[in-house]
């Protein structure tokens, strides 16, 4: 097995032993989905003529991805740095970048697993049809992942300890989820608020996921916003990230 595959396999094993992360990764969005599904009652004029549950499926997907990218990933990387794991790796032929790649890999697996579960349960139990624009959905999902993981790595770069990474992640996550429409869905936002939401990573994520769910290709503007966050975040993290 190559070093990267072995690192990824090891990260996956460690993740399976971390019940809290798995609970957050899978059970939490699923539980929210069920609550929303039970509360949902047909098309809602306040939500632009679609049902509550259909509104919330893309929000929950973005919720889950940003939780992994903005809280789980930076906390894990900051923990590795704090414990000297990254520095230790630097003394071996394997670069610590590969551990980062392995971390992103397992978090992506969790995210993909969760999105499949959410989509299938929403379809079977609550009559929310699968994304009409499959390719557009996949692209929006991929760019959202890239944007939030890059964002998370910036947090891991500036946070001196794992604890602060966790705190910063949580503090950043709440406003991001506000603009994503977790509390007030985007359709119910005023024009100004929605315009601001369009320029935030998770707001653009929800907008493009929603469009793809509804069957049209996501608006290019939303995808470009996500791409811009992904590129800017990655560049910034590459410059700022310290192995020790």
């Amino acid at each position: 097995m190559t070093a990267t595959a072995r690192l990824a396999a090891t990260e996956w094993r460690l993740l399976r032993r971390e019940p809290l992360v798995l609970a957050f990764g899978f059970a939490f969005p699923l539980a929210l989905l069920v609550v929303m599904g039970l509360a949902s009652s047909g098309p809602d004029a306040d939500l632009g003529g679609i049902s509550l549950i259909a509104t919330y499926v893309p929000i929950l997907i973005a919720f889950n991805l940003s939780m992994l990218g903005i809280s789980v990933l930076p906390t894990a990387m900051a923990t590795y740095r704090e414990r000297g794991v990254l520095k230790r790796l630097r003394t071996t032929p394997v670069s610590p970048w590969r551990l980062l790649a392995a971390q992103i890999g397992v978090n992506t697996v969790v995210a993909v697993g969760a999105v499949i579960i959410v989509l299938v349960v929403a379809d079977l139990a609550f009559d929310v049809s699968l994304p009409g624009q499959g390719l557009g959905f996949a692209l929006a999902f991929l760019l959202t992942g890239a944007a939030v993981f890059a964002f998370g790595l910036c947090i891991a770069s500036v946070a001196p300890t794992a604890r602060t990474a966790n705190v910063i992640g949580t503090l950043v996550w709440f406003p991001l989820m506000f603009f994503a429409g977790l509390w007030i869905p985007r359709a119910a936002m005023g024009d100004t608020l929605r315009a601001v939401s369009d320029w935030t990573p998770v707001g653009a994520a929800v907008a493009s996921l929603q469009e793809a769910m509804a069957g049209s290709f996501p608006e290019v503007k939303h995808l470009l916003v996500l791409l811009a966050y992904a590129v800017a975040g990655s560049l910034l993290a590459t410059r700022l990230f310290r192995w020790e």
Partner: protein
Amino acid sequence: MVKSDQLGDVRTGRGEHAAPMSVIEVDNLHKRYGEHVAVQDVSFAVEEGEIFGILGPNGAGKTTTVECVEGLRERDGGTVRVLGHDPATDPAALRELVGAQLQEAELPDRLRVGEALDLFASFYRAPADTAELAAALGLDGLEHRPFAKLSGGQRQKLSIALSLVGNPQVAVLDELTTGLDPAARRDTWALIEGVRERGVTIMLVTHSMEEAERLCDRVAVVDTGRVVALGTPGELVSAVQAGQVLRFLPRPDVDDRLLADLPQVTEIRRERDEVVVAGGADVLAAVTAALAREGIFPERLRVEQATLEDAFVALTGRVPVTAEEAA
């Protein structure tokens, strides 16, 4: 207290040890962090197959020195060669050849011993047999134990095992036994001697006199970023040992003036019932002869040897920190 100018040739190091090829060569290493100079001017050479100690008080620049050797830090001056490679410009070449044990490096809590060994083995082209290595280091039977549940000694064994899993030619071990209980320290020392027998050259960073005296073939004493002495532990000790110190219980008691008048005696004092006499190399013969003439029997007579700790105090003007205090 021995004056530092009595140390003579140990300060210059090298000399008679210039024999085989040097595995590590450090010349005039200089490193600072902003305004703070961590390493002023450090030079030494480590020969193949030896256990070389870097000894010094906390903050002396030991860890910075080895991190420059390992290629973890960029030096600001001087040259470093490890197996012919410069760690600053060619770190990749050294990763397969140098195994490192870092001070205070931990592993994920839930990672098991066997998994850690297999994972690190996968990093190298020609790794050691992990089962064999685990057995050699006394880790057999612990393969399924998670890192969080290991004792300090077990963690240290795992850390040493991981530094050896790539079959390195050189192992750099930083503060190997800090925080271990005495039994675990002795076990670890025996392990290191075993590692040397496998043909690995070892560079050991320590602030423990006992450890340096017990393990190292040669020691560089580093203080405030400079090498203040270099040689075998024996050489360092004899350099500071100006003479001998005798202790005995006189039966019957002796008049101090009798001994003080001897030309070989430089100092005489009482500690409880015991007489403590310091003097030159032939002080033992002179004192026992004088006592015999008076019919006095020196009970519990012993000659005290200076230790590496005395050498260290003489060289750095500092009392060394014990492992327990540092932990």
